[in-house]
C-alpha cells in the first residue's frame, strides 16, 4: 500500500465564534496534511481548538461557529465512488487492492461540498468517533439497530440479511462477540461501548477516521487494548486516523506524526520520534516535561507557568509568550508562522527563536529551564499562579 500519498490537506483554515462581546478565533490559520494509513495526533489543552478543528473538517459546526477561510482538500482513491451519485457504490473490503495509479487525483474541497455530496461523503469517506460512547449511542435502541441504521442510510442496495452479516463482521473486527449484537448500550461495559462506536465508524470502510479523545473516559488497561486493536485494524484496512487528545505521552506511542495546538494555532508539527527527542517549540518542550516519568531518576519537575489563555483575550503576537521563558521583544508583536526547520526532519515550528531574521543569534542550545541563568534560585515548588489576561480591544 502506498503510504506516501496525501489523503487530506488542510490549508489555512480559520474558525471563528461570533460571541456577543467580540469574535473568538477558535482555530487560527491551521494547515497540515494527512497521508494514507497515517496516524496524526492532535495534541493540545483546553481552548487549543483541536476539537473545533476536527468538527470543522467534518463540517459539523453550527452557528455561531463559522469557518471564515481555508480549504480542506480530500483526495479520493481512484477506484472509489463518485461523490455525486449516492446509489451505486462499489463495496470495498480490502482497499489494498485498489491500484494507486499515477494519474493525479483531483482533490475535492470538503468545505464546498453540496448537501447531497456531503451525505455521500460522510461516513463513507470520513467517520468520527466521539469522546463518550454513551453520548453517541442511543440508549433505547440495541446495537443491531444502530449499526444497520448506518448501513441502511448509505447503502440502500444491501438487503436485510447482508446488513446483519456486515454488522456481525464489524463486531468481530473490533473484538465483540457477535452474540452481543442485540444488546442495549447500558448492558455493555465502557470498553465494549467504545468498541461498538468504532465498529459503527468502520461500517462503510472510510478512508479517514477522526477520533476525539476516544479513550479518555476509560481505564488505562482497556484504553491500551482498544488502541492496540485500532492500530492493527488500521494496518489491515488501510485508513488514516486523526487522533485528538490532551495526553501527549500516549500520542508519542501511537501516532506517526504529532501536531501541537495552542490557543487555536498550530505551534509544532513533527514525527513522534523527532518530537520526543528534539522538541523545538518551548511549549512542546514544557508539555513533554509535564508528564512525570515512570522510570529514571526522580527529579523535581515543573509544568508551564500560567494557564492556557482565554480565547476571548489571546495575548498579542505569539499567544504563548507570557508563559515562555525564551520570549523576546519580537514575540509580543509578531505572530509566528510555521517554519520549516529542516527539510529532512519534516519538523515545522511556529516560533521566532527559529526565525533567522528576528533572532539572528539562533535558537538556544537547549530548551531546558536549567539552562537559564539563576536557575538555582527558582523555587519550583512555588509555582506561579497568575498570568494577567490582556483583553483585546473591542472590534468596532
Amino acid at each position, binding site marked *: 500500500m502506498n503510504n506516501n500519498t496525501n489523503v487530506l490537506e488542510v490549508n489555512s483554515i*480559520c474558525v*471563528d*465564534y*461570533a460571541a*456577543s462581546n467580540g*469574535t473568538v*478565533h477558535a482555530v487560527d490559520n491551521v494547515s497540515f496534511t494527512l497521508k494514507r494509513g497515517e496516524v496524526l495526533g492532535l495534541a493540545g489543552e483546553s481552548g487549543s481548538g483541536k476539537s473545533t478543528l476536527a468538527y470543522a473538517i467534518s463540517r459539523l459546526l453550527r*452557528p*455561531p461557529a*463559522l469557518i*471564515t477561510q481555508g480549504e480542506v482538500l480530500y483526495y479520493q482513491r481512484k477506484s472509489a465512488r463518485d461523490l455525486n451519485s449516492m446509489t451505486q457504490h462499489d463495496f470495498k473490503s480490502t482497499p489494498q487492492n485498489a491500484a494507486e495509479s499515477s494519474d493525479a487525483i483531483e482533490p475535492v474541497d470538503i468545505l464546498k461540498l453540496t448537501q447531497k455530496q456531503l451525505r455521500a461523503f460522510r461516513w463513507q469517506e470520513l467517520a468520527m468517533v466521539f469522546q463518550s460512547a454513551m453520548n453517541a449511542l442511543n440508549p433505547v435502541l440495541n446495537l443491531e439497530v444502530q449499526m444497520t441504521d448506518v448501513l441502511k442510510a448509505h447503502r440502500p442496495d444491501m438487503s436485510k440479511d447482508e446488513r446483519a452479516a456486515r454488522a456481525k463482521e464489524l463486531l468481530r473486527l473490533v473484538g465483540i462477540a457477535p452474540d452481543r449484537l442485540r444488546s442495549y448500550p447500558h448492558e455493555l461495559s465502557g470498553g465494549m461501548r467504545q468498541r461498538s462506536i468504532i465498529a459503527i465508524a468502520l461500517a462503510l470502510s472510510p478512508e479517514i477516521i477522526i477520533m476525539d479523545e476516544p479513550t479518555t473516559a476509560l481505564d488505562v488497561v482497556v484504553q491500551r487494548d482498544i488502541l492496540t486493536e485500532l492500530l492493527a485494524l488500521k494496518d489491515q484496512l488501510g485508513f488514516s486516523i486523526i487522533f485528538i487528545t490532551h495526553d501527549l505521552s500516549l500520542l508519542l506511542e501511537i501516532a506517526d506524526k504529532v501536531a501541537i495546538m495552542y490557543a487555536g494555532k498550530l505551534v509544532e508539527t513533527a514525527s513522534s520520534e523527532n518530537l520526543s527527542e528534539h522538541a523545538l517549540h518551548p511549549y512542546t518542550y514544557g508539555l513533554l516535561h509535564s508528564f512525570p516519568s515512570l522510570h529514571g531518576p526522580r527529579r523535581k519537575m515543573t509544568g508551564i*507557568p*500560567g494557564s492556557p489563555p482565554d480565547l476571548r483575550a489571546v*495575548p*498579542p*503576537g505569539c499567544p504563548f*509568550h*507570557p*508563559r*515562555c*521563558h*525564551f*520570549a*523576546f*521583544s*519580537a514575540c*509580543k*508583536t*509578531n*505572530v*509566528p*508562522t510555521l517554519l520549516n526547520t529542516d527539510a529532512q526532519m519534516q519538523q515545522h515550528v511556529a516560533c*521566532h527563536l527559529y*526565525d533567522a*531574521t*528576528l*533572532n539572528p*543569534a539562533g535558537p*538556544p542550545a537547549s530548551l531546558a529551564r536549567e539552562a537559564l541563568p539563576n536557575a538555582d534560585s*527558582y*523555587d*519550583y515548588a*512555588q*509555582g*506561579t499562579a*497568575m*498570568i*494577567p489576561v*490582556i*483583553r*483585546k*480591544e473591542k*472590534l468596532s
Partner: protein
Amino acid sequence: MSKSEMDGEYPQDTAVQDKYELLSPVPLPHEQPFDDGIPAVLPVDVTYKAIPVRKRGLLPRLGLWWQATMTTLAANPKMLTGVCILGFFVLVAIFGPLLLRHDPAAFSNDLFQPPSSTHWLGTTQKGEDIFSQVVVGTRASLLVGFVSAVGATALSVFFGMITGYFAGLVDDILSLVMNIFLVIPSLPLAIVLASFIPFKGPGPIIIVLLITSWAWGARVLRSQTLTMRSRDFVQAARAVGETPAHIIFAEILPNEIALVSASFVSTFIYTILADITLEFLGLGDVSVTSWGNILYWAQNDQALLTGGWWLFIPPGLCIALLGAGLAFLNYGIDDLANPRLRKERKPRPVKAAKKEATA
C-alpha cells in the same frame, strides 16, 4: 534575550473590572515567609501595579445591579414586555386611585350607560363608574394575589428544600403531605374551603390560596435540592463544618433562585386567577371593589343578556393582560436561568480580522 530586553507595556483595555499592568512577562517565584506578612524579598523586575479593590457601598452595588438588569432586559424582549405590563399595573394600583374623578362606590344617575366622555368605561346598573372601579380594583386584586403568591412560595421553598435535603423519614412524611395536596385539585378545594369559612374578605382568600398552591413549587424544589445535595460544593460545605440550615439557605438556595422566581411568577398567575374566580363566585367580600367583584356584580345584573359588554370586558381584559404579562416574564426567567435556551444570533460577517503584523 535577557530579561532586561523584555520591557514594554501591553495595550490597555477600557473595562474597569480588573486591570493591572505587568511590566515584565513572567513573574519570578520569590521568597515567601511562611506566615506571610510582607514578602521578605521582592525581585527587581517584577512589579504589579494593581488597582486596589474598593469595598463597594450599597448605592454603587445597587447601581451595578440596575445596570445589569437593564442590560438583561434589553436583550430579552419577552421579559421586557412582561416587565412593562406588570409595571403598568403596579403603577395603576399605587397611583390610580389618587387620580380618579369619580368615586368608584358612588351611585350616580347615569344608570347602565355605555362608555362615554364622562364615564370612560360606562356605568353599572347602579350608576357606579366602571373605570374607577377597575382602577381601584387593581389594588385589591394585585395585593391579594401578591401576598398569596409570596406566602405560597415561602412555604414551598421551606418545605421543598427541607424535604430535599434531609432525605429519609422527613422526606417520606412531607412528600406524602405534598402529594395529597397535589392530587386534590386546587381550585375546587379553594372554593370548598372558602365557602366554609364563616367570614368573608381578602384574609380568608389569602389563607385558602396559600394552602392550595404551595405544593407544586415544593415538589419542584424538592427534586432540584435532591440533585444539588450530592454536588461537590455542598459536600465541601459539610466537610468544612456548616450547619444544615446554613447549607440549605445560604449555599443551595442561591443556586435555585431562578427556579424560585419562575415558581413565584407561576404561582402569582394562579393566585390572581383563583382570587378572581373566588370573588366571581361571591366567596369574597362583595363590598370591596376588585376585578372579581365587578364580574360578580356583572353576572348578578345579567350583563351578558342585557348586552352590557362594558361591564365585564374591561376587567376581563385586564385579567388577561396581567396574566399574559406575567407569562412573558416567566419566559424571560427561563431564558435567563438556562443559557442554552438563549437564541444565538446569526453571526454577523466578521470584518477583516485584525491580524497583527506577521514576520
